[in-house]
């Protein structure tokens, strides 16, 4: 009898906690967006009573939401900055990083562009405005249209660190708000150059070889491709074992999760 009551209370508690945490709010990077959306869909299909929402507003906004406590998972395509950590700590939030995937940062041009290859130095000079015509890097006589992500983006930060060497992008650059927008601008502008996550490369745009290395799952995994980075999901503290949040945040470690990451076009962390 006692055991029965105990079991019932336990069941009730479990039900209550499950009922209490039946939503997961995800906010942040547009690069990690497709992964988070696929994971959310996958998780909700198996657990219909959990509502997972994903918004893609840029890594910076993801971090802000985490600091303000308005999201459960901040998806970010760059690590959190010291200032963000401090701001979070001040509010009693401890961001914990989960690396869900690796990503290269392909430099994209229009497929009609005959240029096949650039060096990191050349890309840097293009974005500084020192090289302003495709002629100078072996292409036709056309003014280069540089397109960049907005400064709130993790992709921008990665690019600024790995390619620009923290130098400022030149004045004429066009800033857009998402990876998809980069791809659209490049596919509609023959003289454009841009950069986005690996998962956003399709045949409407052409990824260039950088320093002689083509951005692919293999070259990113081996570290050969020079512009690569991990993609993160941040949670407030490590989620309690067995909770929906815990299950969600560990999907990328399962076989299905790795397959999804790969099928979307990114590089699973566990496939060494």
């Amino acid at each position: 009898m006692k055991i029965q009551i105990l079991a019932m209370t336990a069941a009730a508690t479990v039900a209550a906690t499950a009922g209490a945490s039946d939503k997961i709010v995800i906010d942040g990077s547009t690069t990690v967006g497709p992964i988070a959306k696929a994971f959310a869909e996958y998780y909700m299909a198996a657990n219909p009573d959990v509502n997972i929402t994903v918004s893609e507003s840029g890594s910076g906004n993801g971090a802000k939401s985490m600091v303000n406590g308005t999201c459960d998972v901040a998806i970010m395509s760059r690590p959190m900055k010291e200032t963000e950590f401090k701001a979070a700590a001040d509010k009693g939030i401890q961001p914990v990083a989960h690396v869900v995937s690796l990503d290269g940062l392909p430099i994209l041009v229009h497929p009609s562009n005959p240029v096949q290859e650039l060096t990191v130095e050349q890309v840097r000079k293009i974005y500084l405005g020192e090289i302003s015509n495709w002629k100078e890097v072996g292409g036709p006589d056309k003014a280069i249209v540089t397109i960049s992500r907005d400064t709130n983006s993790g992709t921008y930060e990665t690019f600024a660190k790995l390619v620009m060497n923290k130098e400022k992008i030149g004045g004429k650059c066009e800033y857009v708000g998402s990876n998809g927008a980069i791809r659209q601008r490049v596919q509609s502008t023959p003289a454009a150059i841009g950069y986005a996550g690996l998962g956003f490369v399709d045949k409407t745009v052409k990824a260039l070889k950088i320093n002689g290395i083509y951005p692919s799952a293999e070259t990113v995994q081996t570290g050969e491709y020079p512009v690569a980075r991990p993609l993160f999901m941040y949670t407030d503290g490590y989620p309690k074992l067995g909770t929906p949040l815990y299950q969600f945040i560990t999907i990328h470690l399962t076989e299905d999760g790795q397959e999804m990451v790969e099928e979307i076009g990114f590089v699973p962390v566990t496939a060494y």
Partner: protein
Amino acid sequence: MRLETRKLLDKAFSGLGLIAIAVMAMALLAILTPIIWRGSKAFVFKGTIEHRRVMLEQFDRGNSDRFNEELNLTAAARAPVYDMLEAFEAETAELEKTLEAQEDEKKTQAKVLKNQARALKREGGSEEEIARLEAEEDRLKAEAKALKEQARSLGETREEPYEALVDAVQELFGPMPGQKKPVLIRQQYGQTRWDRTLVKLHEVMVEEEWDYSNPDAMGVLVENPRIEKFRGTGLEPFFQYLEDHIDEMMRPKTTFYWQFITDTSKDSHIFGGIWPEVLGTIYLTLGAMIFAIPMGVIAAIYLCEYAREGRTVSFLRICISTLAGVPSIVFGLFGLAFFLNTIQVSDSKSVLAGSLTLSLLILPTIIRSSEEAILAVPRAYKEAALGLGAGRWHTVMTVILPAALPGILTGVVISMGRAAGETAPIIFTAAVSVGAPLKIWETLNQPTPALPWNIYNLCTEHEAVDEIRHVQYGMVFTLVAIVLLLNLFAILMRARISKKLRG
């Protein structure tokens, strides 16, 4: 003379008016026609067997017996395709094996000769014989090398084009039979729409390549028929077969997918419908109305009937006018900063926060239109009521408000359409790109997808934009339809009320 001028001016003005109305009508037509035409394709289109498969497997819809019958027919039509691919694969593997065996044989022979030559040297055999053996050995080695080269080029000429072909075929028909079921729903099915099927069929038939031979100009797109790469192999008839039998393999049928509105989306809008977005839009609009109408009408009554004209009131009026001119994104940022971060109406973005923000956005319109409506009520009504001994409160509630109701409703109509279509205020306060449809109590603390935001999201941020244009058009169509319906409803209601008032 002056009369003539006046007449002329009058005519000119009515002419201009007619032109303006004609331009407006044309603009409306130019905007609405493509929306309706393209949007309707999300509801009525030629669906393939794959669409019916999605419906059956993901939404449990359709007659499974009839479907299986159809599936068997399709499978029979597709079988030769897979057989041909398999045969080609086997043939290539066989060829590779033969080449390798030949290479091995030559190598062994060369080794034997080498040993013979070495033995002769040791025993001091004739120089001529040794030279002959060595020459023979070199010849064999060269032959082995050539074979190796051949095997390598086999990969380039047969395997790489073949892999590209298989990828294209998989996009068309979905995973090959016997293949492990992919995890992502988008990879589990082939093309669900006939128009996309034809696009993908074209991709199977021709390979797009860019010709960069002119270094001074941009490349030119060349379409190379894929069949050229497989001339003389078992795959040559494959292409003709595909072209001739695509109908049997996909079985297109005109499909009415009215459930597009009521289905949830699968795999971020690649399959399924837009119910969470529709519901989110309705919640947000109604929520905004619930907050804005009482506040707006009460404010208008106060301003017209109770407030004494003076500095304070004119300051209030300036505030209202200014509020009407504030860009909507500012409302969005304000909503995030005030409702979410400061007073924390919910612990994450939510429909509640979004509705509150939207209600602030439309408040000025409602106040202004209500004010105009109240002021338009003839003074005589009020005077008569007061003269009969009714109090101010009583007069307002029973005489002025009912008389002003049609006018107030006009403002409500206009602002309702605006609230339904606004994107900027809900970006930071309520809208997400993926989420389940909410139950009514969940709107208090959960965010929701909503049509205006998801239209934008689909066309800029989605990773498979070109594949799901029809969903985007369908969303635009639905949003326009919702706004028109809301307006129609309100207009009808207004007509009824004014009729009642007159009667």
